[in-house]
């Protein structure tokens, strides 16, 4: 569509550039500010005296002798062993995404192909399930999990995250499958395939884009979850977000906010690579899935 840009009037081009510039500033500025500030000491980044200290690094000079300091990163990754949490997060994310998608594609496919009314009621029930605030769910799990010795394990958390995420996954994949012509799998079944064979041989090859898009949302949910992971994981299985929270301190004790800031900044880099890598699929995926909603 880039050729269109050349054709459009100057006023429109100006408008587009203006919108993008303002939005980029709104979206990226807090992050870039954080990126810069993560190399300062807390007294500068959260400077009560003058916000410009975060740029100049007055206290950073006094406390560390340089304008920039890697203390936050060193503290988080080496001293507090943040990599353990990162590793745990990786495990949780990989499993949540793959299990969510497996269950979701099966279910979403069936919901898209069924013409009976119960399919709609099923989707409706899933939506209402999603209305339940996760904190209430988690406080309901706790006694049962402790009683049955399920508490603290990574596997339990993965299953819970998958389940909580199912309604969203189902809705999204359901609309994606609706967009794949039913003739495709039906003709395969006429040729003698079972429903599952048709799904495996005909549908799976064309569904990747939609699945990847849904997967990204599942990934973000697992990656950013606090309510579930903070309550259900034991110390050794702790993921990143509860770990970051533990850097923030409590009422009676001071935390180290700069560790949290450095951790957040450092885990954004892999996300950047991921988005660039999957960019084509995000677009391609929703393209097919979203048309009919």
């Amino acid at each position: 569509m880039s050729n269109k840009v050349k054709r459009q009037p100057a006023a429109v081009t100006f408008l587009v550039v203006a919108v993008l510039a303002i939005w980029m500033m709104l979206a990226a500025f807090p992050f870039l500010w954080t990126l810069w500030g993560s190399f300062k000491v807390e007294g500068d980044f959260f400077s009560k005296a003058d916000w410009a200290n975060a740029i100049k690094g007055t206290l950073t000079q006094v406390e560390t002798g340089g304008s920039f300091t890697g203390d936050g990163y060193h503290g988080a990754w080496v001293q507090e062993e943040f990599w353990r949490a990162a590793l745990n997060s990786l495990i949780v994310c990989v499993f949540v995404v793959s299990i969510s998608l497996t269950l979701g594609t099966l279910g979403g496919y069936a919901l898209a192909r069924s013409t009976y009314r119960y399919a709609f009621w099923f989707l409706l029930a899933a939506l209402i399930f999603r209305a339940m605030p996760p904190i209430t769910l988690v406080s309901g799990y706790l006694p049962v999990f402790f009683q049955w010795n399920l508490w603290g394990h990574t596997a339990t958390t993965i299953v819970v995250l998958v389940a909580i995420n199912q309604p969203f996954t189902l809705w999204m994949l359901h609309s994606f499958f609706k967009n794949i012509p039913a003739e495709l799998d039906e003709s395969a079944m006429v040729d003698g395939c079972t429903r599952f064979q048709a799904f495996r041989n005909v549908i799976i090859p064309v569904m990747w884009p939609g699945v990847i898009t849904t997967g990204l949302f599942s990934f973000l949910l697992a990656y950013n979850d606090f309510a579930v992971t903070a309550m259900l994981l034991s110390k050794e299985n702790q993921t990143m977000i509860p770990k970051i929270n533990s850097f923030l301190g409590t009422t009676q004790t001071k935390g180290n906010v700069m560790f949290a800031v450095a951790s957040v900044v450092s885990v954004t880099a892999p996300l950047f690579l991921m988005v660039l890598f999957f960019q084509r699929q995000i677009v391609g995926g929703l393209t097919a899935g979203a048309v009919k909603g």
Partner: protein
Amino acid sequence: MKHKSFFWFVLPSALAMLLFIFFPIISVIVQSFHVDHEQVIQTVETCDLFGCKESTTIDQEATAALREAKPLGQFAGFATYLDRNHLAVDEVKSTWGSSNGWREFGSQMLNLPFYKAIGFTLTFTFIVTPLVIILGFVIAIAVNSATKALRGPLIFFSLLPMMITPLVGALILFWMVDARGIIGTTLQYLAGDPDLSVKASTPLMWIMLMVYGVWHAAPFAFIVYYAGLQTVSQDTLEAARVDGANRWLQIRHVVIPHLLPLTTFIALMQLMDNFRVFEPIVSFAANAHATSLSWSIYNDLGGETRQLSSAAATSVLTIIGVAILLSPVLVRTWRDFDRK
């Protein structure tokens, strides 16, 4: 699709939801109809590091048998739903009778925790949801008009507000809007008021929460719309152009109708998520100025003494609220479905 194959395909998914969402919801509903057994209080002498004093404690032996027989507590019916910390039926009635005029009635209602929470929740939902949809749409159109090479980074930076954990993202934004932070100072400069503080004023706090809500959720609407834009039929657009439609008319008559089904999906998810607004209130320490239903649940569960029945009742009320809120959209979806 045959019933049998439908059953096997949705089974894993259904099982997961049944076990981890449906059963907990049932137990929450049951819990909301029960309150704790009457506690037998006894006066005892308590001694700690700093000396002894008269104090009270629960006589566990006296209630042990009761608890054994009825572990759920005593059945209370709708008592928890109707008490002051929830629907506050009695208080509403007496306020209705005693207040002169709507204004006074309104302000007294907002003094009741449930109505205070629902007041903010609904305002937030109905302001943030449309803004998210509009902003997401505008950004999607703009990004779509950019050169291909730029789009990758543009998409990444556009997604940032959604990707950074609110735990830290909100902490930093909270600091930036402080009277001495970079945004707060800018606001003071723009308003020409050196004493302006967003965090000290209720209206400004509400606005800030909503701005954050829009900022945080716009990327979701953006990415969905952006993808939808890729499938706009070029032929239709070309035809519109030949007919002399300008850019705005093309958007109005071709693009917007094409994206309408997507809007339903975004609206559904956003209405629900905004109705459950919770994280920004905690992160911005805004609870003196604004509360929400989800915040009330968090507050009930996070105190020194957990109030399970109260949290359960509020949760059920939240589900009912979501169901009412979504019903217009759902009725539409049902009609679409039934037509097929």
